[in-house]
């Protein structure tokens, strides 16, 4: 089993800092006005440079007797944006949770770049990963949750600096500066001292997006990020994510029930059912002329609501 051909050199986080000033400025444009709240994304804040690809190799995940993923194979290219759709219980969220190490892998291999997430090399054997390996691998991955999961005991600033200071070893000043930049980007610069409970759902989710980006991940996982929002707040968050997706080199995996959003944000759509990929292709194809009956049924059901 060779590593996937998805890695383009070693990722260097520094590439993002200096080089991007030039192109970042021109981004305050059209869709900014739509949500009202989106301030326009300054690309300086976004991870740049080589993102790793992801590959699932015969991945198995069970919950008790219930097999959620059955020898699943799929690949996501470096910097590719992929949306996973399908009926609930089809294993989409489990895929993201495996990548974030929130669930344990039962069998198979998950590659991030040219390394396996759940296994490490010892000699020429692969043994289950220890905490240290998982910690290292997780540095590349960030996740935004359906329920935001901000830390309610910390204000917005501290939510954004906790990780960079405690995990990445940034100085307080560096972390604060990074947090300010990100808050600016998500349009919440004035909420820096607020507590999560004082924010609307949409604002909380923006902060959560900023918190994930503050760790400068290479892979970003979006798990039904607008499902818990009031309808009028959905568009603002989606616009923000669209901007981020366009202007960063993140490898993006997105689980959503919002088909318009899926169409906008992704290079490729994977349709799941019962832990298997039923159909995959560019959004236009999947949403325009799906070839599988199950995809058609699913889309009809989703669009009917």
């Amino acid at each position, binding site marked *: 089993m060779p590593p996937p051909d998805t890695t383009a050199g070693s990722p260097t986080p520094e590439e993002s800092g200096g080089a991007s000033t030039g192109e970042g400025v021109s981004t305050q444009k059209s869709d900014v006005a739509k949500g009202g709240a989106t301030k326009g994304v300054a690309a300086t804040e976004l991870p740049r440079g080589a993102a790793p690809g992801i590959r699932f190799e015969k991945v198995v995940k069970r919950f008790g007797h219930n097999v959620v993923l059955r020898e699943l194979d799929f690949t996501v290219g470096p910097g590719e944006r992929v949306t996973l759709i399908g009926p609930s219980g089809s294993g989409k969220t489990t895929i993201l949770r495996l990548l*974030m190490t929130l669930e344990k892998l039962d069998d198979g291999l998950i590659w991030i770049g040219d390394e396996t997430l759940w296994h490490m090399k010892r000699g020429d054997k692969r043994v289950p990963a220890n905490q240290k390996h998982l910690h290292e691998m997780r540095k590349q991955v960030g996740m935004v949750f359906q329920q935001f*999961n901000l*830390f309610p005991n910390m204000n917005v600033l501290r939510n954004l600096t906790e990780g960079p200071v*405690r995990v990445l070893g940034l100085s307080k000043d560096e972390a604060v500066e990074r947090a300010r930049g990100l808050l600016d980007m998500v349009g919440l610069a004035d909420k820096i001292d607020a507590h999560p409970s004082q924010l609307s759902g949409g604002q909380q989710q923006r902060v959560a997006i900023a918190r994930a980006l503050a760790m400068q991940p290479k892979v970003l996982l979006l798990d039904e990020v607008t499902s818990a929002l009031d309808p009028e707040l959905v568009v603002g968050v989606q616009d923000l994510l669209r901007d981020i997706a366009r202007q960063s080199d993140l490898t993006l995996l997105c689980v959503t029930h919002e088909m318009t959003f899926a169409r906008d944000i992704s290079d490729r759509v994977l349709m799941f059912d019962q832990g298997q990929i039923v159909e995959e292709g560019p959004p236009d194809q999947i949403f325009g002329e799906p070839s599988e009956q199950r995809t058609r049924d699913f889309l009809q059901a989703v669009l009917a609501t």
Partner: protein
Amino acid sequence: MDWNWDFTWEILPELLEGLRTTVIATLCGYVIALVLGLVWTLLRRSPSRILNQTVRWVTEFIRSTPLIPQLFFVFYVLPSWGLTIGPLTAGIITLGIHYSTYTAEVYRAGIADVPKGQWEACTAINLPRSRVWLDVILPQAIRRVIPTLGNYLIAMFKDSPMLLVINVSEVLLVAYQEGGRTYQYLEPITVVGVLFVVVSVISSILVRRLERRYATT
């Protein structure tokens, strides 16, 4: 049997002195209970089966036996093993350990109440274990249980007269001795009752204030 005010005023200073001892024993014991309870809770979550099961059964044992035999054990049995401590210290330690097995349960419930998403967010930003506990889980868990912990302070205060069995001159023992000296029990015992009501009511008000403060935000 008539109430004797002169006698009441005569014994009041001594009773207040006894009350002071009672309050000191309660507060010191409470600090031990708060700290040790947290230690039990964290040890019970240890991945080492030997450790967490030992802690589980030891705390279960302490919680299921009455305070008085425990006081006797610490004060009369430990010295025969070469560990001699004064009555007040023995009382404080025993009270603290006894109640730590209750506060441990309170902390456990508080930690269980922290939503799963908080742990997952910690994993997602890759926070090390120690920081997960110190910065995220414990602040939220403890906040939730502050009112319950406050109630245990009042419960401990009401249990502290039991220290008289090892001759701690707390308020009830003082009253009892005054009664024995003069064969007048009505005034000393009644005054003890009143003192307990006063302190308990004040503490309840304070605890309720804490409750309001931490329940809102």
